[in-house]
């Protein structure tokens, strides 16, 4: 994208009407309620390309996620939402700004330390389940633990426990190719959860699933969040998926366009409010949403 930010500059003026629906539009401030933020993103920028042809994928993005929160990030293709997740999850490096996870700035970490940090603090779930095709489900879930040299007994106990919570115990000895897409995603979710990470990053987890399996997976996420009080940050372009979260950040042209909080609303009501914002964001984005 060239340097001109016409759509981005136009955005704030258009938020006037949905602003009534949102509970606040101050991304810099930690979320209310006195809760501790486990993730703080401060003024991050991500710039691609050479001097002649610069693409600003992220432009001064700031937000915070509290302990036990389930946050969604929505945006059209190319809006920068995946780049945001990659930067936050340390898979990609930011051009400027800070990303604090549990109070530690990950943007300045060296590779070796980062590897360890990623292993211990983060859990990942991707669009394609990203399971190792040579391992069984049990081994896939166990992988993050064995990499961290957790004793074998403890590994097997924790794998069994997580699998039980997500209802995939009967699939533990199957290989990925023997499972459906939904089952694979739930194994991936179990793998993300098994290390008891500070925050779980999910990138379009329902993207490759049919609606039934998507619903099952999202319910698993809800369960993870409510019963295991896992903190989840989920990128999606699916309003239905987003309606399962507590809060949705809308990204457009590398900036946070607006934010919706679910509050006490039912999932159905929240879904409708999300749809309104999506419709309002309109233009090129709507067809992709």
């Amino acid at each position, binding site marked *: 994208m060239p340097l001109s930010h016409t759509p981005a500059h136009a955005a704030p003026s258009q938020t006037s009407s949905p602003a009534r629906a949102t509970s606040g539009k101050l991304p810099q401030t930690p979320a209310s309620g006195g809760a501790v933020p486990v993730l703080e993103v401060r003024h991050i920028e991500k710039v691609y390309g050479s001097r002649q042809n610069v693409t600003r994928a992220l432009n001064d993005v700031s937000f915070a996620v509290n302990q036990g929160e389930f946050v969604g990030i929505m945006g059209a293709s190319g809006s920068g939402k995946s780049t945001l997740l990659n930067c936050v999850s*340390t*898979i*990609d*490096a930011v051009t400027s700004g800070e990303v604090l996870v549990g109070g530690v700035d990950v943007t300045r970490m060296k*590779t*070796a330390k*980062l*590897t*360890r*940090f*990623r*292993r*211990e603090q*983060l859990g*990942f779930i991707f669009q394609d389940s*990203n*399971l*190792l*095709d*040579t*391992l069984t489900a049990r*081994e896939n879930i*166990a*992988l*993050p*633990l*064995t*990499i*961290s*040299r957790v*004793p*074998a*007994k403890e*590994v*097997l106990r924790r794998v069994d426990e997580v699998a039980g919570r997500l209802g995939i115990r009967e699939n533990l000895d199957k*290989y*990925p*190719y023997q499972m459906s897409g939904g089952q694979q995603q739930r194994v991936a979710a179990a*793998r993300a959860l098994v290390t008891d990470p500070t925050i779980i990053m999910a990138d379009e987890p329902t993207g490759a699933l049919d609606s039934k399996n998507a619903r099952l997976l999202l319910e698993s996420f809800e369960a993870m969040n409510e019963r295991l009080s896992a903190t989840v940050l989920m990128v999606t372009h699916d309003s239905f998926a987003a309606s399962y979260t507590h809060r949705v950040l809308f990204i457009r042209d590398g900036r946070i366009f607006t934010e919706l909080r679910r509050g006490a609303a039912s999932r159905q009501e929240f879904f409708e409010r999300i749809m309104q914002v999506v419709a309002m964001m309109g233009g090129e984005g709507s067809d992709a949403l």
Partner: protein
Amino acid sequence: MLCKIAWGNVRRAGRDYLVYLLTLTLAVTVFYAFNTISIQVDLAGVAAENAGVGDLLGGIISGLTVFLAFVMGFLMVYANNFIMKRRKKEFGLYQVLGMSRGQVARIMALETLIVSGGALVLGVLLGIALSQLMVFFTASLFKTQIADFHFFFSVGAFMTTVGCLVAIFLVTLVFNLRVVARARVIDLMSAGRQNEVVHTRNPWVSAAVFAVGLAMIVVAYVRLLSDGLPYDGSPEGMTAFLITTATVVVGTILFFFGLSGFLLKALQSAHGLYWRGLNMVTLRQLAAKVNTVSFSMAMISMILFLAITAVTTGMSLASVMNESVERGTPVDYTATLIYFSPQSVDEMNADAASWDEPVRYAAADGPVDVMKAFEADTFMEGEREGEHFDLASIAGDYLQVDCYESTPRGATKPLIALDELCRRVDLPLPKGVDDSSAASMGLLVMSASSYNAYLAFRGMPQVDFGSDGYTVLSDMGEAVNKVYNAVLGEGLELELGGCTLRPVQDRVNEDASTFANSMMGMNSGIVVIPDDLLATLDLPPYNSYLLVDYADGVSVAEGDDYVAEPRLYGDITNAAGEVVAGHGVEATRTSTYESVDSMNGLISYLAIYIGFVLVVACAAILTIQQLSGVADAGRNYRILAELGTSKREISHSVLVQQSIFFVFPLAVGIAHSCVALSVIIELVTLFGGMSIGGTVGFTALIFVVAYGGYFLVTYLMSRGMVAEFVRTR
């Protein structure tokens, strides 16, 4: 346009093509360099001493090159299949974009042409350089001096190399075109997207297969060790040997088929080890590849086995000759006469009766004077043409030694036979003579005075035989001497002509048992007995040795020239004018040394050539498989990195996998070789001791460097690939 695409593809698929290019280049280099052998032999001054060695070697090597080109051709087809498999989608895309199959095929042909052409240019340049260097190596192998070194290029070798490369190119091309022609677009397009279906077998079944394979290998080892090689060529022996061979081949295949399953099962039962770090990933990766790779691993271990065994045996034979040549050349010149046996004379006379100029043959009453007998010879050409052969004119000290058969005239059975001696000392017949007529053939007999004269001639202490002493002489090495040493050591008594003989020595003196210049031992057993007893036995003469040192005024070169001059052999007759003996081998010390050197050079040369090409071919297959395996597992490695595995740990897992793939075939090959060699050594010891060292060690080093080099390249390239997969920021 097609050229541009092809060139782009070669550059883009550089890594895949790199190994292909490397191996082909290496093959071309070796083909060219070794095929210049006849020129090298000239330059190294070998031909001057041994006319014909160069041509002989050249002939064998060009034959071998054709065989090795076949091996390389197979390898290239294999390597190429890997590249093709990975690029199916790309070829599908070309067709979807509207290219005809013909055009796609042409792109592929051009790619192969570019790579083959590159390999040809690089390989020939390297080959030219290598062949110049090899002249020095050749000279040292053949122990000659380089007379006139100059740069050379062999058109013949170049043409042979190009021919082989073209053949390889054509074969590869045919296979490639088949891939394109057969594939449907839909398959090509979805090739990359299809889920990797992991073919896993029940680990218990795999472990069982592994156990069966191992058992079969052990059975084959035991069979080979107890049966030995089928020296005699009897149908039962050959059948048994074939069964053993089949058992070891099938066993090896099963071994590799079950290997990963076995390792998996073994480690899974050790919980602490399996659920630790990347161990389970490493094992599962291995197990996933087993279907595609186990067969080639088995084949590679068999090829390595052949290479190791052939090279070691060949070079050991060479070193045996080297060591025994000093003992085998007691004097400047030796000649042998062989007397006609009473049994064969009648038959020979019957044959001769129909000739235009009938010759009468007869069994000799006693030995003839060899020196005198040679005077009947006349020179056939050169400045001495027509002159009689006057050995006395160049001879200084000389000695004639006569041997007798141990079967008396009129008798049918020998008085002393090897099989009987073996039975009496309770030892098996030496390998290689068992079940053959050699066993029941009698030993030769020599008089004590003859032997003491020989000892005096050689400047060795005399042996007192008294009236009933005997000893045994042999220079054939440990296999036979084991029996004789037992006979002498146990003080075995021999009953001969009513006389009881007792040994006067307790072991065979091998250093005083050689009567003719020879590369290897020729005397398989002579019993020395008192003169008086010999006179009463009525034994027919068997042969007479003449041992000559040149006179003081005659240089070795002059003497050698004189006896090497072609001459017409005169008849060796008795007083009645009947022919009683024929000429046997004549040899100078110099010519014996030279034939050892050129035989050594010949064997070493061939061994290194075959061994090197085979080892490189095996290593290249492993490299290609491993690199493509790493590429296929790229997604898995990226996931591991995302889960927080360090690059070091992933590389370590790759290293473990590749070590298993490289080390196991080599280890099995070496194990097979050790067993086979232990049997072969028994055979080789018939011709004198066998030692493994020196040149063999050097050759082993070259092979280890080549094999290890491929391993290193594989690992380093894999590490680079892993780094690319896991690069996160």
